């Protein structure tokens, strides 16, 4: 069918400023929603500590180091009475000990022909407190492989402090796990060299960890069978947000690693912030939809005579609606595409910074998926509304 004349009649009924207003508001609202959702998906794993190898609801507990205790080291160890008391608290689910290495340890890494050596130390905790791939976290007395978990702060110290100031490349967690180095263990007149690799990071614990089995064995093999008391404990809570926790630990002169509590606060604020943004942007989108629907209604009311005459000479409501459906459909799709582009470009700004440090999906799949969903929802919705308005005008 030749629609040239029909379009000529209908083109004059459009109100360009209102359509422009619709495009602008839909674009702004949708861009904010798309970006917020994408940012939420991108950043949530970083804030909910899924990168941490430690079980959730677990903190490390140590005694406060005071002037008195500096002189008399005995004061930093937990005695049996204290352990029993802690175990009996209703908010404590489980208490585990740290085991310290009682032998000498040295790490050696080759860097461009040079070998760097450093003394360091090991500790271990029961394996069930760690969430590391079991294939990585195994030790076998016959093999020469020794996995390590290091504090996340070490990596941050390097990336944000050292690498920044020395213009060195930054290292991501994935890259870090590729680096192998040697660990030399000695004591009791014996020495052994292990191939070592970092298999995980922890922000909750400031120590270098090895598998518990290894340390039990190595303490017997190389150790000086010194004291086996604990200066640090791992405490698992039933609920980390229990308000009795801070007062108990403060009252008993104990130190808590605050990370668990802090990060859940940050994650909460982040979630609230994103929700707030999405809510505001959703209101903008709803207003833009309401605005264009009212504008279309105005067009139909103003041009009722035209539509009725077209209908009387044989044009069907569908044929009359098609022009408006096409215009609004194209305008909506363009607006969605523009919003997706703006959101993707904005995302690229933060992804570039973050990708070198964390593993982020670079596709921006959330933005694209949401854009497609909005198109699938909005275009048929408008088609239906326009047809209904035109049919209604004939009554």
């Amino acid at each position: 069918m030749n629609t040239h004349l029909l379009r000529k009649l209908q083109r004059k009924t459009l109100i360009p400023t209102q359509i422009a207003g619709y495009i602008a508001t839909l674009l702004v609202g949708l861009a904010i929603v798309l970006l917020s959702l994408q940012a939420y998906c991108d950043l949530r794993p970083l804030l909910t500590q899924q990168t941490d190898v430690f079980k959730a609801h677990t903190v490390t507990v140590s005694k406060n180091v005071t002037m008195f205790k500096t002189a008399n080291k005995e004061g930093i160890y937990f005695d049996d009475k204290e352990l029993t008391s802690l175990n009996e608290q209703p908010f404590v689910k489980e208490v585990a000990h740290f085991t310290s290495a009682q032998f000498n340890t040295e790490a050696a890494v080759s860097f461009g022909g040079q070998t760097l050596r450093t003394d360091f130390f090991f500790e271990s905790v029961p394996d069930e407190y760690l969430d590391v791939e079991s294939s990585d976290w195994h030790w076998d007395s016959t093999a020469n492989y020794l996995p390590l978990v290091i504090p996340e702060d070490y990596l941050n110290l390097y990336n944000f402090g050292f690498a920044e100031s020395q213009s060195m490349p930054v290292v991501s967690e994935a890259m870090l796990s590729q680096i192998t180095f040697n660990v030399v263990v000695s004591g009791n007149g014996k020495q052994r060299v292990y191939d070592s690799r970092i298999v995980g990071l922890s922000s909750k614990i400031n120590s270098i960890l090895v598998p518990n089995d290894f340390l039990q064995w190595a303490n017997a093999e190389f150790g000086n069978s010194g004291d086996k008391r604990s200066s640090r404990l791992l405490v698992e809570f039933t609920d980390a947000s229990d308000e009795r926790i801070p007062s108990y630990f403060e009252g008993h002169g104990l130190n808590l690693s605050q990370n668990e509590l802090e990060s859940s606060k940050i994650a909460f604020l982040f979630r609230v912030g994103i929700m707030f943004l999405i809510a505001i942007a959703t209101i903008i989108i709803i207003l833009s939809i309401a605005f264009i629907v009212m504008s279309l209604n105005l067009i139909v009311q103003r041009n009722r005579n035209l539509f009725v005459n077209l209908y009387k000479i044989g044009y069907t409501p569908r044929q009359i609606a098609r022009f408006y459906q096409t215009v609004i459909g194209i305008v909506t799709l363009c607006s969605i595409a523009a919003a997706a582009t703006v959101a993707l470009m904005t995302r690229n700004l933060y992804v570039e910074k973050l990708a070198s440090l964390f593993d982020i999906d670079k596709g921006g799949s959330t933005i694209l998926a949401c854009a497609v969903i909005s198109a699938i929802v909005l275009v048929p919705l408008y088609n239906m509304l326009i047809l209904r308005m035109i049919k209604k005008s004939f009554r």
Partner: protein
Amino acid sequence: MSEPEVAGSDIYLRPELRFEQGKKYMVCAKSGHGKSSLLNFIYGINKEYEGTIEMLSENEEGQKSLGTHILSYMFQDLCLFPELTAIENVQLKNDLTNFKSDSEIEKMLTALLPAEKRHQPVASLSLGQQQRVAAVRALCQPMQFLMMDEPFSHLDKETAQKVADMVVAEVDRQGAGLIVTALDPIEMLPFDIKLNL
């Protein structure tokens, strides 16, 4: 309308009235007696009546194409589009039906309108000239019936005769029926049946 008003009617309150394809009907009535309403009932754009109206034609295309393939209707208020020219008004209808060629449309309008008027917006035409455009438009479709609501009310006799001849030629060519309403009997059309409303 009240019963005494329609007492002498050949149409209202009758048990059945049949319009036959191929025949020409004239429906006469004073103004306000429902001539337009009757045609609108038949065309399906006014449903404020009691009783039933049935189309007995064999129509494969269904109700949808009623206004473009079965019934052609020249409205009393003409239903022209004032911003379109005379030719465009006719073409707008022909776009739907693809029934006449551009040269046929041009030829029909030439017979009824001065050359300079054919390309002017209809808004600038006199009522009589607009009536001629509407008549030509009504001929641009396949039809089983042509309904014309007071088609010659603003035309002088000579022009009315020209329009009437063109209408009869098209209706006869298609073997269609014709229903024309008027205030007073019309002489320029060869009616088979005259009905009082």
